[in-house]
């Protein structure tokens, strides 16, 4: 079992739900983003998702597009971002670190080289929103040569049952359920079919289900937490960082996560 799956096991055993914050590496700069990552872990993150900025993030809405472009403008390179993620992962080995990025960055250096770098740096998993099931096939054997790195599949509310079944079988660590038909961004209303889809997925698999896209505060985090095993929150944090001064950003993120944590745990407790 990989680190992420193991971590979910512990969280389930404790009767809790996983809080998975996303931050963009290099935003507002590399140094501050490292401090934000540490603050996020201290504020109660169970798993941390670190985004490596790509020039054309087609699955992301305006908030993460902006953070990615700012990070690139400030000179963030994929190698520096991986090193930053590795430092954070090394300090807190109980919190697995996932890398979220787009497939072209991996292909540019070579998939094997990239996965090897992640393995060397103790990074636990990978989310690639543009590597669909269909495109995964050509690279499957390379991914399988790196069993330490858990490749998380994304499921959509519009995925038919037959695809959900395959996605649930292929995913490692957890299944990432996208709560909206849309791109990342806080404050979108969740798809009406989400609860029904969650029930379908749950009937197909025991693997942990984490829901992301659209979380805008403790209330929505609590609602999603009740439906699955974990909640992923990104754009909300990125916006909080954007409106804060750089030196305050880690504290702002910590406060935001503490509120989400409280909302999720309260709801879980009441249930």
């Amino acid at each position, binding site marked *: 079992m990989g680190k992420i799956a193991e971590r979910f096991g512990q969280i389930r055993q404790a009767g809790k739900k996983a809080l998975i914050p996303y931050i963009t590496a290099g935003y507002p700069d590399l140094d501050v983003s490292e401090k934000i990552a540490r603050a996020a872990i201290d504020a109660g993150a169970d798993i941390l998702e670190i985004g490596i900025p790509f020039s054309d993030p087609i699955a992301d809405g305006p908030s993460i597009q902006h953070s990615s472009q700012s990070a690139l403008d400030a000179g963030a390179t994929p*190698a520096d971002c991986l090193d930053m993620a590795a430092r954070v992962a090394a300090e807190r080995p109980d919190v697995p670190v996932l890398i979220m990025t787009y497939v*072209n960055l991996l*292909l540019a250096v070579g998939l094997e080289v990239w996965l090897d770098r992640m393995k060397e740096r103790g990074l636990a998993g990978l989310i690639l929103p543009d590597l669909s099931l269909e*495109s995964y096939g050509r690279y499957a054997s390379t991914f399988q040569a790196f069993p330490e790195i858990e490749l998380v599949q994304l499921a959509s509310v519009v995925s038919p049952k037959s695809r959900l079944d395959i996605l649930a079988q292929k995913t490692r660590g957890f299944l990432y359920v996208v709560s909206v038909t849309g*791109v990342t961004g806080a404050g979108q209303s969740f798809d009406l079919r989400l609860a029904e889809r969650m029930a379908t997925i749950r009937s197909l698999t025991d693997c942990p289900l984490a829901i992301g896209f659209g979380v805008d505060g403790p209330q929505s985090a609590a609602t999603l937490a009740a439906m699955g095993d974990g909640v992923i929150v990104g754009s909300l944090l990125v916006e909080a960082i954007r409106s804060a001064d750089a030196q305050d950003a880690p504290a702002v993120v910590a406060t935001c996560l503490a509120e989400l944590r409280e909302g999720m745990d309260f709801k879980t407790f009441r249930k």
Partner: protein
Amino acid sequence: MGSPDPEGYFGQFGGRFVPETVIPALLELEESYRSALEDASFETSLSDLRKDYSGRPTPLYRAERLSEAWGAPIDLKREDLNHTGAHKINNCLGQGLLAVRMEKSRIVAETGAGQHGVATATVSALLGLKAVIYMGAEDIRRQAPNVARMRLLGAEVRPVTSGRGTLKDATSEALRDWVSNVRDTFYLLGSTVGPHPYPEMVRSFQSVIGREAREQILTRDGELPDTLVACVGGGSNAMGIFYPFLQDADVKMVGVEAGGDGAEKHAAPLSCGRPGVLHGAYSYLMQDEHGQVQETHSISAGLDYPGVGPEHSYLLEQGRVQYVRVSDQQALEAFEELTRREGIIPALESAHALASARTIAREGTEGGKSILVNLSGRGDKDLNEVIRLLEERDG
């Protein structure tokens, strides 16, 4: 050679590198597209619209004065004479009918030069569909007449300011819109790019250009041309004319990329890039060492794109098509030459193909056979930009 494999790969190029949310929509699109191809009534509707609405077949015109000046026979496939002034309408009629067949009420599209946007807005008006067109802010500036046309036709034009505000960014935004509205929206992609089945489908709707041209030249001359020349941005007009000739081994083919300033600033992924993933397909791409997509530059908004259709990457690696670059200045000269010698004002995109044809003509053709240039569009949309550039050049 030809069709992609069932997963949408031409050799190693193509595929479906998009979020899961749109994969079911792509599968549905592919199924509808294949069933439409087997439905005689779809073919009839399409060919009626091509003939009576768009004005096909477009003429094959021997440009005598240009031939004399350049030293070899030059034929022009007059796609500029289509309704809306470019080849883009061929694809929009096909996809528009498909959208109706799939009962989608809303169309999204990207546009660079505005030709695809105008064709989309036109077909949407014709078929009673709501159209939302994404266009880069920089392109809105340099292609103002087309923006006005789209709005008159009832389309909503949404400016895109992310990135550099050109075709790449407009395409990303159209894709995001599709991801967000996938249930009722049809993405009317304008070129042979994007995830499978778009490259194959757009090629199929555009290959009417090559089928007509092949028949026209055989009827007139009793022989095939020496060389086909077409400009390549995403590559739809080029695939449209090349595809029906691919089996004709003696016919040479030249795809012309935007060479920009002739040095560092260009939009020529096949000549200068390396394979990568952008907008859903693995294909040649202008990218830096880290895999970040690079900025492009071209005088022509329609060619100002860092990627290219996957089938072109395949034809490059197969050696079937030769890809060359033409600079902004060379394209501008060819624009002036066609205008002055033949009374035809070409689109700046098509002027790139003409500039390359001039070079080929000067080297001579085998047995005096012709050079067939796909004149993909007319230049009305470029007048302001060309006048500005000529004043800049000539002082």
